[in-house]
């Protein structure tokens, strides 16, 4: 997912096609019973592992994290001082992926840039989802006027195309890593808020919530201790999609020249430097960074897709 509030969970929205009850022979029922006794989480994990693309996604993410954070320890390059004498060297023995226009080694740059992209993406996704989950749970649990006001506010912000709002905020509060994380979170918390509010509406009628109420548990405690933890499935699915979105948003801002100022860099900034030279045949300025973004974003999207399928197993068991 990229630019904004579009429901990514087509299957969830439309509902999975269900198969009616079937009378299975006794031995099959035994097998099913044994399968079910292994617990919901175990089953979810199995469904997730069957989702080949999702497993591939996990592999790619682990690889990318190792590449960006451990890679620089093994493949050491100078990413602080530019070296104009050795700019735009084609990939070869000395520089695996060549050098860029300032003489930085592209492979090493890819690692440093990836650190920023992944850090900002993760942080923004966690903040946005955390805030959205709380917002949605509070609105859904208390209902009535509180719900109406809180959700109309979400509707209003959803009507504003996120990138336009983001441009305004980035220009008004000049971008550094912290403000970048905050403004991206600020345009990203709306979808989780909506999803969790919907789920809370059904959770609040559950027996255990009613029981806590009867025992005198207060609203805040119910929301934090009983409702929010039970939305963990939806929340996890959403976080993965949000990370993918946030990495793209960081890249967009950098491409538009409104991201983090040099010498800090990220994959988007590398690309926007390379764009100037598209007709000069410096392919190594355009492809490695682009492929890194696409791989990481696709990986997170695949993981989200797989998590959603395994979440459906849990929901069916309830």
């Amino acid at each position, binding site marked *: 997912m990229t*630019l*904004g509030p579009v429901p990514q969970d087509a299957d969830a929205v439309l509902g999975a096609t269900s198969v009616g009850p079937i009378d299975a022979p006794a031995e099959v029922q035994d097998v099913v019973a044994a399968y079910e006794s292994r617990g919901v989480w175990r089953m979810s994990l199995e469904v997730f592992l069957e989702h080949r693309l999702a497993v591939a996604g996990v592999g790619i993410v682990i690889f990318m994290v190792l590449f960006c954070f451990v890679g620089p320890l093994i493949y050491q390059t100078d990413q602080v001082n530019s070296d104009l004498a050795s700019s735009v060297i084609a990939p070869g023995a000395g520089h695996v992926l060549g050098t860029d226009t300032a003489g930085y080694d592209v492979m090493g740059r890819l690692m440093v840039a990836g650190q920023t992209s992944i850090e900002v993406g993760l942080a923004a996704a966690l903040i946005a989802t955390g805030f959205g989950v709380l917002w949605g749970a509070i609105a859904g649990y208390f209902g009535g006027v509180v719900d109406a006001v809180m959700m109309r506010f979400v509707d209003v912000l959803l009507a504003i195309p996120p*990138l336009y709002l983001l441009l305004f905020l980035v220009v*008004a509060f000049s971008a550094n890593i912290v403000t970048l994380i905050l403004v991206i979170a600020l345009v990203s918390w709306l979808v989780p808020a909506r999803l969790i509010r919907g789920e809370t509406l059904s959770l609040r009628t559950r027996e255990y919530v009613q029981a806590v109420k009867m025992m005198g548990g207060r609203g805040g405690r119910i929301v934090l201790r009983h409702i929010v933890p039970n939305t963990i499935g939806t929340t996890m699915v959403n976080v993965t999609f949000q990370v993918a979105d946030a990495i793209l948003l960081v890249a967009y801002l950098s491409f538009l020249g409104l991201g983090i100022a040099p010498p800090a860099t990220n994959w988007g900034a590398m690309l926007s430097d390379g764009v100037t030279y598209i007709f000069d045949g410096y392919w190594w300025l355009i492809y490695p960074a682009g492929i890194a973004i696409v791989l990481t974003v*696709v990986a997170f999207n695949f993981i989200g897709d797989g998590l959603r399928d395994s979440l459906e197993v849990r929901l069916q068991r309830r």
Partner: protein
Amino acid sequence: MLGYIIRRVLQAVLITIGVTLVVFVLFHVLDLQGGGVARAILGNRATAVQIAQFNHDNGLNLSWPQQYVNYLGNLIHGDFGYSYKLNQSVGSLLAQDLPKTLLLMSLSYGLAIIVAVPLGIYQAVRRNKIDDYVFTGITFIFYSMPVFWLGIILIVIFAGTFHVLPPEGPQGTNVGDLFSQFTALILPVLTLSLITIALFSRYMRSSVLENMVQDYVRTARAKGASNTRVLFLHVMRNAMIPILTLIGLSVGYIFSGALVTEALFNYPGIGLLTWTSAITKDYPVILGVIVVTGLATVLGSLMADILYAVADPRVRYTR
């Protein structure tokens, strides 16, 4: 039906008012920069006299509710503010550039739907077979690509290697100008629609799958209708209804994609206008664009909902 439409329109009006409130707050957020709104808009070199004049002209000395009422009044009269950087009213800038963005967006929507609907049906029919996975993979990759990077690759291929299409979008002051340079339109439209196809085809796939187990399909089959007939005459028509909702919901997403596409191809729409205004810190223009795109998004989902209710009468009673 009429009741449903009236309720839905009222809701849209409420959200539009909300959008103007948000923009009003954003305008005053500029106060946080330290120098006040006037300083943020006029720049560091503005003299005390100019700032006092600006505050007076824009009623910034009034109370907030008074200011908001004035702002709303201005908007209703088509006054979206004034760009001090371009020396032009924001309204005239929007009137010039918005239609061009809408042209780009509608062509891209059209292309994306033409490709995604058959693709979604095909994937549903071939569910969980190898070609379903391949197409899922391909559409996901396009979906995960940064718009500008996809655009760059298309430029390198079609303008660099083969020299068949121009690397820049069409130039001109009105939609007619742009339309007359059709070859220049192809790459921007292609870029924007490729990232959208996954969105629609995923939806179409699930929607077809859901419809294929419905009773009416069994009835049609029992009456002896062929597979093709069932699929394209019965299932497709029903499966396309949810796509309407998706079109409404994705307007904001496409607007954002259009911004990046316009920036890359130098396509003279409101996306490019917003970007250049962001670079020059021309806040009134950005805020004007936010109001207009917000309004367009609200109208988009309103129209989608009404069309949905026309296409699927069940909605009117359940919502």
